[in-house]
């Protein structure tokens, strides 16, 4: 029963993801004057789903490795460790987020974390 429920949950999430990606692709196709087969959207959904699974596992591992219970931006930045272009883009986005927050989210982290972590964060920001 438990596995059944889990499978159902997975199916639900996948269909939601399919819908979401389908919407996005629809807009892209109109904008870029291309066409896609429905199978393409389905396959892309599977690809993105497994990529998200991997990502979440990675993030969890990174956070645990740092001895945290919370995933921080630095963990996400580690995802791009093998791709410089991606790192540049993500770093830009990170700067944007920090700028829009006004104060870096290190405040939340410091409330829970240890001083060592705070130092690590400060280093990354530079």
């Amino acid at each position, binding site marked *: 029963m438990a596995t059944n429920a889990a499978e159902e949950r997975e199916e639900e999430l996948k269909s939601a993801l399919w819908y*979401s990606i389908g919407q996005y692709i629809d807009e892209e196709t109109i904008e870029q004057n291309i066409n896609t087969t429905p199978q393409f959207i389905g396959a892309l959904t599977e690809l993105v789903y497994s990529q998200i699974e991997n*990502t979440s596992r990675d993030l969890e591992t990174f956070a645990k490795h740092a001895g945290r219970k919370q995933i921080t931006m630095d963990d996400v930045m580690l995802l791009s460790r093998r791709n410089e272009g991606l790192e540049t883009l*993500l770093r830009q986005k990170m700067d944007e987020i920090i700028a829009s927050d006004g104060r870096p989210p290190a405040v939340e982290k410091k409330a829970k974390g240890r001083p060592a972590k705070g130092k690590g964060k400060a280093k990354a920001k530079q």
Partner: protein
Amino acid sequence: MGNCWRGVLDLDHVTACLQHRHTRSTIPTPRSYIMPPRVAKPVQRKGPAFKPPRPIKSPAQTANTTTTNRASGANAARSAPANKKPTAARPKAQPATTIISSGDEDEGESEDEDILSLSDRDEPMDDASDEEEQRALPPPDMPRRDPITPGLLALLLQQGFDDPKIGIQRGAMLLVEEYMRLFVKEAVARARYERNVAKKSGVTDGFLQVEDLEKLTPQLVLDF
């Protein structure tokens, strides 16, 4: 020509189609076999060969050539029906020459020239119709949206965590959203690239296929 109406009830498009059909109909049937369907929609080529009477500028002129050709003997007479077409199609075809032997060769050349000019005329026509289609599309002024809605992504991430107690910061969540947005965008862009490559090598339509995704996935996953 029925495909002109397929799905799109747009005046611009329809007029483009009509123009398209009009220009196309002046081309003799064999041309459509010479030119492979390079267009995105091969269906456009499949229409029944509509061959209207070609405009004959000067019937006297054609009569002239045939008479001179007939005079030149059996050899010229054999080539006469082939030559008649270009002479009739081009209003400025050279008038029947007095020197029959060289005139025969000239006419052979002029036919080649005519093929060239016809195929030349064919190309901009295809492009023009493509442009017409592009213009018929609505302008891209809608707001950008994420391929994966934020709430859904949060749920999916949660699903992937082994430890249910693990949390994620808001900023980190935004960053993951950006990461996945880039991932999907990159996948589509690469699929487009693969499709263009496939288009060059063979006859395909412009639809992004699963096989494109199959080709790009290994490198994409390595890059992300």
